[in-house]
């Protein structure tokens, strides 16, 4: 079946270092979304990418969608302790009723 793989599973960084998580889908996606989940919390929408090769920025966060619409990345510049949490990519297949296929998530910890 359709799968979305995400690496790494864990990332421990020193505050101020950069962080990147990568996502790869087994099938072409109509869109990819990124969510952040704090410990004990629920997924919170960060951004959505729709177009091939699209790049979007939100302050220190940069999101990319690959040309083939099968891979994506999230890069955080100069991490802060408030960035702590698990970052999930979620792929939206074509014509599947809004279904999102989540990656396994990357748990980010930031040491002050």
């Amino acid at each position, binding site marked *: *079946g359709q799968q979305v793989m995400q690496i790494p599973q864990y990332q421990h960084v020193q505050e101020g270092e950069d962080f990147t998580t990568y996502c790869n889908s087994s099938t072409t996606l*109509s*869109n990819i*979304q990124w*969510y952040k989940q704090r410990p004990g*919390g*629920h*997924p*919170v*929408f960060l951004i*959505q990418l*729709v177009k091939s090769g699209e790049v979007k920025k939100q302050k220190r966060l940069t999101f990319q969608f690959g040309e083939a619409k099968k891979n994506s990345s999230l890069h955080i510049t100069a991490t802060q302790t408030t960035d702590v949490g698990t970052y*999930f990519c*979620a792929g*939206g297949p074509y014509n*599947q*009723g*809004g*279904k*999102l*296929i*989540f*990656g*396994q*998530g990357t748990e980010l910890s930031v040491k002050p």
Partner: protein
Amino acid sequence: EPEVTQTPSHQVTQMGQEVILRCVPISNHLYFYWYRQILGQKVEFLVSFYNNEISEKSEIFDDQFSVERPDGSNFTLKIRSTKLEDSAMYFCASSYLTGSYEQYFGPGTRLTVT
């Protein structure tokens, strides 16, 4: 800001019992979803619902599961005969449109089957 609400926050039930998890989606949203997350694992899609019918479901969503929108505001997930492996956090989500639109997640119901 409008939000999705879910009740109860925690449900403990015995194996074989029926449970109903309740959600109130955002009022002008048209698409509704259930996901589950086993502790420490990824979020898994269960079902999507639009116009009073299921539009997509996963292999997890077998005959033991059903969804309903009994009135204009509630969206429910019923598990007919719970199993130990149904223990998970269940998230409801809603979106205004489907496809390339963000989904707003509720806080979740933690279901514990003993």
